[in-house]
C-alpha cells in the first residue's frame, strides 16, 4: 500500500517547484499523465478486494482532485508572473504618430448649395436642373431679352461655335465685353449666363403652381479679382395665382436670416431693372464695415446680395403660362458670394484653383450637418 500522503507531498513539491508552464506540465504528466504515479495507482485498483477498492479508489480520486487544483493554482500563478514579466517588457512610445488617416472634404460650393436648397425646401421649393450650353432663345429671348436688347450687355456672354455647321466664328478676340451674336447661325448656342433657362424649361414642362429652385454653374465672359468666368447661382421661381411682392420680401428675409443665422438681419429692397421681372429689385443686407472687416447683420452699412422681382408677364407668356391668371416672383443669388460672406472666404478666384491647402481649410467634412 503506497503512502498516499508521501505521494501527495512528492507530487505537490514538484508542482510547486515548477517556475514555468513547461516544468509544470512535466510535473503534471509525472503525477496525472497516462504513465503518471497517480494514474499508475488507479491501475492497481482492479487487484484489490471489493471493500478496499472502493475506499482506496475514493482516496486516490481525492488526491487527484487536490493535485489538479494545485496545478491550476500553480498555472495561474505562473501565468500571472509571465504576464507581469511581459507587461514589464512591452512598452510603446505613445508620442509616436498613429497611422495617418486621409481626411477628405466637400467643396464649400457643394455645402452652400445644399444649405440654400434645404432652406428653400422647407418653403416647398423643389430643385430642377438644365443644360449649361443653352440655345440663345432659352437663355435670353424667352426671358424678354430679344436679340439687340440692351440688357444683353449686362451679361457678358460666351458664345459657342456651331459644331461642324460652318458658322462664322469670332476669330481670336478674347474677353471682349460686347460680342456680337452670330446672326447667321439660326440657333446660336451660349453658355448659360444664369440658371433662368432652367426655370423657363420648368414652366414649359409643368403647370402652375410652381415653386422651383435652380442651382448650378453659370458663365460670364469676365475675369478679374472679383469676377470668374464660371460661378454658381441659385435661382428661385414661384408661379401661382396669388403670390405677390410681399411674399418675395418675406421669402428672402426668412431665407437670409436663416442662412446667416441672424434672426434680426436687416434687408433693404431697392428698385432695379431686369428684363425678366417687373417690378424688379436688388436686395441689400445689413452689415458692418467699421473695423475694416465685414460683419453681416450688425451695423449701418449695406451689402448687395441678390436681384429679384415679379416675373414679367411677357416671360410667363413666352413660357406658355397665362399672365392674365398667373403671376409670381423670381430671384437669383450667387453661391460663391454667399459662401464667402458666411464662411469668411476672401477671394472668389481661389474657389476654382483646387489648391489642396485651400480645400482642406475651407472644405467641409462629410460628417458636417
Amino acid at each position, binding site marked *: 500500500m503506497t503512502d498516499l500522503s508521501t505521494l501527495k507531498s512528492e507530487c505537490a513539491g514538484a508542482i510547486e517547484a515548477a517556475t514555468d508552464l513547461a516544468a509544470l506540465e512535466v510535473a503534471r504528466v509525472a503525477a496525472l499523465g497516462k504513465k503518471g504515479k497517480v494514474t499508475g495507482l488507479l491501475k492497481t485498483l482492479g487487484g484489490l478486494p471489493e471493500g478496499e477498492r472502493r475506499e482506496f479508489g475514493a482516496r486516490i480520486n481525492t488526491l487527484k482532485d487536490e493535485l489538479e487544483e494545485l496545478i491550476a493554482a500553480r498555472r495561474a500563478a505562473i501565468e500571472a508572473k509571465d504576464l507581469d514579466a511581459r507587461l514589464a517588457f512591452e512598452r510603446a512610445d505613445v508620442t509616436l*504618430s*498613429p497611422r*495617418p488617416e*486621409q481626411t*477628405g472634404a466637400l*467643396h464649400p*460650393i*457643394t455645402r452652400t448649395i*445644399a444649405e440654400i436648397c434645404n432652406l428653400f425646401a422647407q418653403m*416647398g421649393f*423643389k*430643385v430642377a436642373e438644365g443644360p*449649361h*450650353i443653352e*440655345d440663345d432663345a432659352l437663355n435670353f429671348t424667352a426671358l424678354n431679352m430679344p436679340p*439687340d*436688347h*440692351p440688357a444683353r450687355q*449686362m451679361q457678358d456672354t*460666351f*458664345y*459657342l*461655335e*456651331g*459644331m461642324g455647321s460652318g458658322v462664322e466664328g469670332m476669330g*481670336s478676340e*478674347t474677353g471682349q465685353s*460686347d*460680342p456680337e451674336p452670330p446672326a447667321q447661325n439660326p440657333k446660336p448656342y451660349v453658355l448659360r449666363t444664369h440658371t433662368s433657362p432652367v426655370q423657363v424649361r420648368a414652366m414649359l414642362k409643368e403647370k402652375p403652381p410652381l415653386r422651383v429652385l435652380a442651382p448650378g*454653374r453659370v*458663365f460670364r465672359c*469676365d475675369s478679374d479679382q472679383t469676377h470668374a*468666368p*464660371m460661378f454658381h447661382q441659385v435661382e428661385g421661381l*414661384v408661379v401661382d395665382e396669388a403670390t*405677390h*411682392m*410681399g411674399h418675395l*420680401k*418675406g*421669402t428672402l*428675409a*426668412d431665407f437670409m436670416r436663416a442662412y446667416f443665422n441672424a434672426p434680426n438681419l436687416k434687408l433693404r429692397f*431697392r*428698385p*432695379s*431693372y431686369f428684363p425678366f421681372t*417687373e*417690378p424688379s*429689385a436688388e436686395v441689400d443686407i445689413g452689415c458692418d464695415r467699421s473695423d475694416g472687416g465685414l460683419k453681416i447683420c450688425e451695423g449701418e452699412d449695406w451689402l448687395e446680395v441678390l436681384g429679384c422681382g415679379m416675373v414679367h*408677364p411677357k416671360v410667363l407668356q413666352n413660357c406658355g403660362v397665362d399672365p392674365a391668371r398667373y*403671376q409670381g416672383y423670381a430671384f437669383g443669388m450667387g453661391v460663391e458670394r454667399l459662401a464667402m460672406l458666411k464662411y469668411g472666404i476672401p477671394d472668389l478666384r481661389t474657389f*476654382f*484653383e*483646387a*489648391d*489642396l*491647402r485651400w*480645400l482642406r481649410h475651407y*472644405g467641409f467634412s462629410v460628417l458636417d450637418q
Partner: protein
Amino acid sequence: MKFTLSWLKDHLETDAGAEELAGKMTAIGLEVESLSDPAAALAPFIVARIESAEKHPHADRLKLCKVDTGSAMVAVVCGAPNARTGLKGVFAAPGTVIPASGAALKISGIRGVESRGMLCSARELQLGEDHEGIIELPDDAPVGQSFAAYRGLSDPVFEIRLTPNRPDCFGVRGIARDLAAVGMGRLKPRGANAVTGAFKSPFGIALATDDKTACPYLVGRYFKGLRNGPSPEWLQNRLKAIGQKPISALVDITNYLTIDAARPLHVFDAAKVKGGIRARPAEPGEKILALNGKEYALDPDITVIADHETAHAIAGIMGGMESGCTGTTTEAFLECAYFDPVRTARSGRRLQITSDARTRFERGVDPGFMLEAAGLATKLILDICGGVASELVVAGAPPKVSGAAHLRASRCKTLGGLDVPVLEQKKLLEAIGCTVKDAPGGLDVAFPGWRPDMEGEADCVEEILRLKGYDAIPPVSMPRLQVFAENPFLPAQRRAEAAKRALAARGMLEAVTWSFMPASLAALFGGEGPRLQNPISSDLDVMRKTLLPNLLQAAARNAGRGYPDAALFEAGAVYHGLAPEDQGFCVGGVRAGLARPRHWAEKARAADLFDAKADARAALAAVGAPVAGVQASPGAPGWFHPGRSGVLRLGGAVLGAFGEIHPAILRQLDIRTPACGFELFFDALPSLKETGAARPPVDLPELQPVVRDFAFRMPRDAAAGALVRAVQGASRELIAGVEVFDLYEGEGVPEGSKSLAVEVRIQPRGKSLTEGELEALSEKIIAAASRAAGATLR
C-alpha cells in the same frame, strides 16, 4: 452717368443736400455709385489778408508777411512777387495738405525766419496753371471764411449706375423729374425756346432708308455767321466737372445737351457737306473716318447721315471727322434725329464703338422732344457763337414709341403686395409724366415719350411702388404647401451628393474646376468638346469632355507648390455637343503621388489603379448601383496606361473607366509622380428604382462558416475575376465569399504562369458539413477553376 449738384439744380428746385439726394436716388433705383466733392481737398484753405509785407532780411526776393487769418495774426515768408500789404489771398495753415504736391505743409525756417503757413497760388490748389504769384481775391472777400465756400467751388459730382430701361435718366432733367416725383423738390419748367428762322435753309434733308423704321424722323437747321471759339466758362466747367474735355463751342453745346437732356445732336461744318443731308443705308464696303480718328468699314445694315456723295456720320453712334466743326467753322448744319434703338445697338456692336450718343439712341430717345431740342440747341448756338439760324427743315414724323395701359385699382395690392389709394396712384404716375384718366375699375395710363420701357400694367405697379419705396411693402412668409415637404432634390442630384460624400469619406478633396480647358490638352484626351467663340483666354477655349485633364492639371499645380500627393475629385458636367442630350454628368477623381505617405508604422505606397478602382466602386456603391454585378475588364480610353487600366461594366453598359494615367500624358502635364484616376459616366447608370426605406430580411445562419484556402497556378493573362467568379459559382448556396489573398509570379512558378491563392468562406446551411461533403465541394471548386481560368491546384 455723371453730373454735378449745380447741374441738377438747373432742373430741380430743392433745398436738399447732396447726401440726401444721393440716398433718394439709390432708393428709387438710380443707384449712386459715387458722390465726390472735388473741392473737398480745398476745405482747410481760408481767406486771409496781408496786414504788412516787408522785405526778408536775408533774401531779396522773399517777403515777411503778417497775415490776418481771421482768428490769428501769423508770420508767413512769401516769395510771390505780388505779395503786398492789403492783398487778400488764400491761406494754408501748417498741416494742410497742398493739392498740387499731396504733401502736408510744415512750419519751416526760410533763411533764418520761421514761416507759419503759406499763401497759395492757383497751381498749388490745382485751380489753374498760374504760379507767377499768389491768388488775389477781391477786397470784399471775408477774412477767415472758407475759400471754397466763398468761391462756390463746392459742387459735388454724382455718378450713378443706370439700368438699361431708363434712357430718360441719361439726361440730368430725367433724374430731376424722378426726384421731384418723390418730393425732393420741384421740376423747373423749361423756358420757351422756339426760335424763328431768319432765312430758308439752303440745305435740304431727306429720309432714304429702305426700312422706314431706321430713321423715321429727321430735323435740321442751317446757321450762318458763326464764331466757333472756345465755349464760355460755365459750359466748360460743366463738362470738365464730369470729366469731359471742352473742344469748341459747337461741339460742347451738343455734348452738353446729350448730358442735360439725354438728347444727342450733331453739328456738321456746312462748308464740308454738299447741299444737304439724308439718312440712308451705308453702301457695301463704304468707309468712314469717325471723330475718334479711326476708319470704319460699313455695310447696308448700318445707317449713315450723308450728303449726295459721302457719309458724314454713323447714325446714332459717331460723327465723321471730315465734316466735323473746327475753329474756322462759320456755317454749320444742326441735325436732330430719331434713330431706331435696335439698329443703333447692332451697328454699335458690330463697329465696336461705344459713345454717349449710342448709349442714348440704343435705349431710345424721346421722339416727342425733337423740335424743342433743336430749339434749345439753336438758342445756345446763337447765344454763344452769334450768327443767324434758318428755318427748321423737317423730314418724316415722330414714331410712336410710348404705350398705354389700364391699371386695375387693386393691382398694386395683388401684384405688389401694397395697398395704394387710387388717388395717390394717379398722382405718382402723373409726377413721372404719365397722362392718367379715371376709368372703370382703375386708371387709364398713357406713358410719356421718354419712357419707352413702360409697356403694361406691371410697369405702372413698378413705378408706383418704386416711388412709394419698396420698404413700404409688408413682408409675408410663403404659405405652406403641405405638412411634410417632399425630398426637394432630383434623383440625379441625390446620386451626385452620395457619390461626393463617399469619395470625401475616402480621403479625397472635392475640387471645382472650370468647365473649359485648353484645346491643346483636349487633343490628348479624346479631342475637343464644343469650342468657344470668345474664350476668356486661349487656354480655356474648349468645353471639357472629361473631368480628368483639369483634375490632373490641378494635381500638377499642387505639386508645383510642393504638395505632390493629391487626392482630388470633381462631380460635374461634361460636354460632348451643344444639344442638351449631349451634355453629361460625370464624377471623376485623381490620385497622384503617394496614396500612403511615409510613416514609421507602415510602408509608403504610390497611388495605383486599385486605389482608383476602389474609389470608383465606392462611388458606385454610394449611388446604389449593384456593385456586385459590376465587372472590370480592359479597354479604358487611351489616356490611361494601356496595361494598367480598365472599364467598369454593368451588363452591356460601360459605367466608367479607371487606371493609371498614361506615362506620356503625365510627362506632357509635367507630373513627375505616378498618378491614377477614374471617371464614372452617371448618364450610363441604370435608372435606379426607388426601393423605399425597407431592407431585405437579414441572413444570419446559426452555423459557423468554414474557411478553406486554395492555391492555384494559372496562365499569367488569365483574369483573377474569372477565377473568383468560377469559385463562387461552384456552389451559390454554400459559398458566402471568395477573396484573393495572394498573388505571386516569379521563382517557383513557371514562366507565363502566376500563382493565385484564394480564401473561400463556406457557409453551412441547416446542418454541419461532413468532411466528405467538404471534400466534394473542394473538388467542384477546383474543377470550376480549371474550366473557367485554366487554373490547376498547386
